């Protein structure tokens, strides 16, 4: 089997060091996955997505509806097949080599370099042909189900008996030109000219493919997998200049209340960024509502996608300590496209207080809060400064 990629996208958060990004407080594996996934879908608009596979070891929750969040953020119908695959670079490369047309494969990392990659499989494009794999157990790094990490501190053991022995066992005809899953100096031991990759987990193969790899080896401790890459596909990279995370004071611990019925009622519109459209006069309402804001029609609104570009109508920055929230943070009312619809949202991807009335930017899928253990997703406003750097 060979996977044919119609598009490839990579996404890096704005925070951290240039070569080692960190997720912002409103980012996690799901928001990073949505960012990369949306970019891959936009780059291959003719391919219909039938299934989504998210590969990561940084799932924010092990139970509690992550696939629904992912589909809503990607604006895919809830009927779409969606799976969470627990794995790193090997699992991600295996999924790419095995991807049927219509499969959106996403790899997301938070812990060891934050970033995400996505590829949408189609009928042609960049061919990913598996060259072999070997699973082996040399658990020098163990993370148990409760998140407790134990390290067996012996890098040479892992390199010699795990990585190098595994690659040798594959008996590759052509030498690998990139290694996904290893830090840069360790990758050089496998392939001298291996490109530096910003992540070492499930998203790493996407960054390697983006770097032009033709023979790619993925490593996950002692497990290895290799694939050849031929042909080409449209490629999109979101790689803004890195900035240090703004210093903020954590709020005093508090368990924020959640009304789960309200969460469930709002879910589709809130995570899909959709307004209700009045069937009588066409007025859009965010959030959707029973009675039209303009004409009073009550015959039932349908959800419709909102534009994601906007202009700040008003903005404030909260400095006073607020339990449960890190301060300072900025809140803005953003007017969306030319719809007249406004959204009240956090400002993100910029220092608190940096945004002013009249600034333009875009709405991004982000974590809004964690309430009673429930991760509450929605949208935040990123000023165009961040977007402009991403394009550069």
């Amino acid at each position: 089997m060979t996977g044919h990629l119609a598009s490839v996208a990579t996404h890096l958060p704005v925070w951290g060091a240039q070569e080692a990004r960190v997720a912002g407080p409103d980012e996690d594996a799901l928001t990073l996955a949505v960012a990369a996934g949306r970019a891959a879908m936009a780059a291959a608009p003719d391919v219909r997505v039938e299934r989504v596979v998210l590969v990561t070891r940084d799932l924010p929750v092990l139970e509690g509806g992550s696939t629904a969040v992912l589909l809503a953020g990607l604006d895919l119908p809830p009927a779409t097949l969606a799976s969470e695959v627990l794995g790193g670079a090997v699992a991600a490369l295996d999924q790419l080599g095995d991807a049927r047309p219509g499969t959106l494969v996403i790899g997301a990392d938070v812990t060891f370099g934050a970033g995400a990659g996505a590829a949408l499989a189609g009928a042609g494009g960049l061919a990913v042909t598996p060259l072999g794999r070997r699973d082996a157990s040399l658990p020098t790094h163990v993370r148990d189900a409760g998140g407790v990490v134990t390290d067996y501190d012996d890098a040479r053991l892992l390199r010699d008996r795990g990585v190098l022995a595994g690659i040798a066992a594959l008996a590759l005809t052509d030498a690998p030109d990139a290694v996904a899953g290893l830090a840069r100096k360790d990758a050089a031991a496998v392939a001298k000219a291996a490109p530096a990759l910003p992540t070492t987990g499930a998203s790493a193969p996407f960054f390697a493919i983006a770097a032009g790899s033709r023979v790619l080896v993925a490593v996950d401790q002692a497990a290895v997998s290799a694939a050849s890459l031929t042909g080409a596909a449209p490629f999109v990279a979101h790689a803004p200049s890195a900035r240090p995370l703004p210093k903020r004071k954590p709020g005093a611990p508090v368990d924020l209340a959640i009304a789960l019925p309200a969460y469930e009622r709002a879910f589709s519109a809130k995570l899909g960024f959709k307004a209700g459209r009045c069937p009588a006069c066409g007025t859009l309402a965010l959030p959707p509502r029973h009675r039209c804001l303009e004409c009073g029609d009550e015959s039932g609104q349908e959800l419709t996608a909102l534009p994601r570009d906007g202009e700040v109508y008003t903005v404030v920055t909260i400095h006073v300590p607020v339990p449960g929230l890190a301060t300072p943070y900025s809140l803005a009312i953003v007017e969306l496209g030319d719809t007249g619809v406004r959204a009240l949202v956090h400002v993100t991807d910029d220092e608190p207080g940096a945004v002013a009335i009249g600034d333009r930017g875009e709405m991004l899928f982000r974590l809004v809060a964690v309430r009673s253990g429930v991760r509450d997703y929605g949208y935040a406003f990123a000023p165009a400064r961040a977007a402009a750097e991403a394009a550069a």
Partner: protein
Amino acid sequence: MRPVAVVGAGMTPFAEHFDLGMKDLLPRAVGEALASVEKGIDRSELQAAWFGELTTSDGFPSGLLADSCGLLDIPVTRVENACATGNDAVRNAFFAVASGYIDVALVVGADKVRETSARSTFWDWMAMTRDMAWDYPLGLVAPANFALHAARYLHESPATREHMAMVAVKNHHNAVTNPKAHLRFEITVEQVLNAPTVVAPFGLYDCTPQSDGAAALVLAAADVADRYTSTPVWVRGVGLGLDRVMHQHKRDMTTFPATVKAAKQAFAMAGLGPQDMSVAEVHDCFSAVELISYEDLGFCERFGAAKLVEAGETTLTGRLPVNPSGGLKAKGHPPGATGVAQCVEIAEQLWGRAANQVDGARHGLAHNIGGPTAVSAVTVLSTEQS
């Protein structure tokens, strides 16, 4: 409807009353209001009571009032209308007397904001005023609620942070000589501008303190007012206005349409206009809110508030003194009590015995704007029955 008069008015000091519970504050305010009745009144003459309380401190509000004040034999209704609670309690009692249902009514407003920790108040209040799915998790704390308006107002109008500061300085100055006020000290414009930021553009001195307190009024029908006083203060107009509750749906955030509607109703009922007012207690939970409210109440033209404060027209010696009591900013703001206490202040101004007396005051106004800036209540009082 028949004319209704204020015949008694009283209040506790506004402060952090850590030593007094709701059951201690209520009888003190009611007792002072009854004692203020010129020709005397026995509490058995009160026929019904309206009690404005925004939060619920020490339990069931109506019952607490009846129980703690010896009013177990009359009906008591709790009124809750966000920060407009106080003036709305006055309004409801007014209707009962004006309609002829009763002749003498008691109005009480009270809140104990400091019964919870200073910080936890944020989430308690957000749970009361925000959409639980869309807005609550954002942390739109009370100062941010108003700051969203203030930021846009500063953007569009000639007003600056200095003009906001002038309001705070004025109201602090007035509070110094009001023994009932919470913050009785002078501040300067520089202090306001250099104070720690709470929610930009509000610094610490742009914000109301968190206060406890209670206030009470005795209302009587014109037919019986003579029994109680030779100087009735007439409730000439009441108004209550609402607006969209979500900030996203307020088209023009440089104004509070709820105030415009409430003022229009109250002035129309009174047969008076903003130009007739001799004194006003205006909702100044945050300095900029007083500026915006000048315009919404018709005290100046749109975006004319900066000029009004620059000219000193709303100081104690100006053309229209605003917040002679110190306002919410310095007298304090226990929300349920605030509107009732504003009417206590205006009544005392019209009786000529206020702490900061405005010479020859004839007509006065009390104003609240609250909740998610979606409700306003206005009361117009006068020395003249019509």
